[in-house]
């Protein structure tokens, strides 16, 4: 059985799954940037003392799972979310849903995902795909980061749905429960809600490690690492920052470009000139993240390495923090009525 599901490639998996599922349920209006912005996806956090693959843990976006949840919530769309302790039950539930013509979002680990190239198969468990059909023992899969749809055998799907380790999916599946259109008014309200929540997350989250202050925190850490760590470890840490910022799923520039695109699209629903000028500020932030990446690569490849070069990296990050702070303050000052 095969549902009439439209596969659209996206930059980020969870955005893509969210808007593809909403599209399938009848609304053609929610694009990837809208899902990301309404879900208040932009973030920055650096978690000291926690290591991922022996490198620092940091993220340029909010917790996995939140984008779908927040987007549905802000749009006033009910949804179902379920985890399982039994693999058999997880498969049965999925099969039943498919029979009811429901396309289902699934959280999966990428380590055992057969169509990923070996170089990308880390134990990362917060990837998202849509299952939109089953033919014999094969599930039809729409992975939003892929240009085309793909397939997984029931064994392969079970393996990735029950991948273990940090953020283990435990068979997590989810889908929106509605059909029909989403009104412009719903979208307008959701956009405002999403922006306000993102302002809160980036500017007012307590503590030094998250939001705009998190960017300054890691700028400072880079200086400390350079003094304290051996060269090899220092390079590994820098490379990790760049990977998290630029790797597949970020749309480049640590999600900043997707957010800038969101503000442009928001303007179509709420014609406030400020949205366009603030969008430009996020484009600028994204460009600066990318030039930071170029210089950081110079350091971890050994082309640059003087104290001045390291100071320069920290300086660039602080400049980015300034721009993002300014942009979010401007967003918080928009009068919506």
């Amino acid at each position, binding site marked *: 059985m095969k549902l009439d599901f439209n596969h659209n490639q996206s930059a980020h998996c969870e955005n893509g799954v969210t808007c593809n599922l909403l599209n399938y349920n009848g609304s053609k209006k929610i694009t990837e940037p809208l899902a990301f912005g309404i879900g208040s996806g932009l973030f920055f956090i650096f978690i000291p003392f926690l290591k991922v693959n022996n490198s620092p843990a940091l993220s340029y976006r909010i917790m996995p799972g939140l984008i779908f949840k927040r987007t549905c919530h802000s749009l006033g769309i009910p949804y179902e979310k379920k985890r399982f302790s039994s693999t058999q039950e997880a498969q049965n539930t999925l099969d039943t849903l498919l029979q009811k013509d429901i396309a289902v979002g699934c959280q999966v680990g990428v380590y055992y995902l057969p169509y990923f190239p070996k170089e990308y198969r880390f134990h990362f468990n917060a990837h998202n795909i849509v299952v939109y059909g089953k033919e014999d023992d094969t599930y039809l899969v729409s992975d939003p980061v892929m240009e085309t749809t793909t397939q997984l055998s029931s064994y392969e799907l079970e393996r990735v749905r029950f991948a273990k*380790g940090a953020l283990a999916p435990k068979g997590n599946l989810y889908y929106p429960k509605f059909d029909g259109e989403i009104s412009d008014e719903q979208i307008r309200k959701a956009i405002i809600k999403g922006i306000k929540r993102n302002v809160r997350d980036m500017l007012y989250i307590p503590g030094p490690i998250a939001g705009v202050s998190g960017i300054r925190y890691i700028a400072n850490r880079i200086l400390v690492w350079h003094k304290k760590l051996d060269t090899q470890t220092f390079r590994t840490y820098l490379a990790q920052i760049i*990977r998290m910022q630029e790797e597949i799923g970020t749309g480049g520039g640590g999600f900043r470009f997707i957010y800038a695109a969101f503000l442009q699209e928001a303007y179509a629903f709420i014609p406030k000139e400020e949205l366009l000028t603030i969008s430009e500020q996020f484009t600028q932030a994204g460009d600066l993240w990318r030039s930071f990446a170029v210089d950081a690569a110079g350091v971890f490849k050994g082309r640059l390495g003087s104290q001045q070069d390291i100071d320069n990296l920290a300086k660039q990050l602080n400049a980015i923090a300034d721009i993002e702070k300014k942009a979010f303050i401007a967003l918080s000052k928009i009068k919506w009525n």
Partner: protein
Amino acid sequence: MKLEETPQDKSALEVMTKELCYVVDENGNYTKSLSKGWEVKAAALDLAWDDIEIRVESARQKVLQGNASPILYYMELKIMDLSIISAYTGFWTWQIKRHMKASVFAKLSNKKLQKYANLFEVSIDEFKTIQ
């Protein structure tokens, strides 16, 4: 990032898909564009894999010298850590640490070895003999 700046460098991702990026066109409007890869992030990924290779090789030497059991080698080879092995095998992390000692490993029952071998996708014989 401008449309015409979309990087098209060599990358490991090429064999799988092109990556979607959000870029600005000549009128300042956002649009989508597909990228083959970017050398900066390819370099970051290469470095991550160089690190893994170094860790695998150092684990292999430890096993050959009798300072660790093959579990350490396979943990590095499969980019796992104690908590991941623990989640898949059901052993506690302190047990796994113990099993990583060559002397303890030598006395492990076939049943326990089989759990590890299943996770590392090797036969017990392969598992025991690291070249």
